[in-house]
């Protein structure tokens, strides 16, 4: 039922994942810009250091309320069936995301004001 390969598989997978989580936390860049993407379309780009509240979409059903406060972002309210997005808590680092699958909403943070990070330059 349990073979040696099973244990090798489980242990190595778990170790790799813990490693990834640790790396994320050590090398995570401080976020600077909050992107709010609804159905693939970027409808909000806001600085992380300014408090703000945004309702996506502006009116009607299927909404989420995204709040930027004191350097972190969270969803304070939504009318989706599972409200997982509200329970996902706060994010503050580059690359972290909050998603609401029923509403096709993704809130994410990027590390610089440029759309794409420049990884390196040569002259």
């Amino acid at each position, binding site marked *: *039922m349990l*073979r040696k390969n*099973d244990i090798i598989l489980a242990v190595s*997978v778990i170790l790799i*994942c813990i490693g990834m989580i640790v790396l994320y936390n050590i090398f995570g860049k401080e976020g600077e810009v909050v992107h709010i993407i609804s159905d693939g379309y970027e409808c909000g780009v806001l600085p992380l250091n300014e408090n703000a509240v945004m309702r996506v979409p502006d009116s009607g059903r299927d909404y989420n309320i995204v709040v930027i406060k004191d350097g972190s972002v969270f969803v304070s309210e939504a009318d989706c069936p599972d409200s997982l997005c509200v329970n996902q808590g706060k994010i503050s680092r580059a690359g972290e*995301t909050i998603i609401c699958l029923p509403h096709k909403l993704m809130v994410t943070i990027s590390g610089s004001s440029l759309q794409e990070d420049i990884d390196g330059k040569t002259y």
Partner: protein
Amino acid sequence: MAKLTSRYAVYISLAFILSYLESLIWLPIPIPGIKPGLANIVIVFVLYDTGRIRDVLAVSLVRIILSSLIFGNMVMMIYSLCGGMLSAFLMIAAKKMKRFGIIGVSIIGGISHNIGQLAVAAVTLLTYQLIYYMPVLIISGTVSGFLVGLFSGICVKRISGYNGGT
């Protein structure tokens, strides 16, 4: 033929009820896609009981479609189908490789189920950023795969090969 139909019926309804049960009693963890996957106990059992590819795929497919139609919606069906069928295929392949025990196969099933669903989410939201969730989903898939495999292994030991009473 009637025997096969009734076996399928038992497997499918068991898996169906297990997935319903799961949706009732499980506390929703904030990350989409984390669940124990109780219905997979049946899938893994079928894999080790009859061992036929068509049985595993049929039970999986019908169970997913049924429970998504009745307890969910089209979006949920797409997620479940991608995760569930990927999981079924990889488990069949893993068993054929003859390198893993039932627990290992089930772990592979659990991991691939979550990765399949994450992939659909990434395509739906048109982003790679969801990769941030991958470590947590993989660990959760491993743990639930382990438990499912453990339980299913016990069932296989005790029930497998049972061909109907007299």
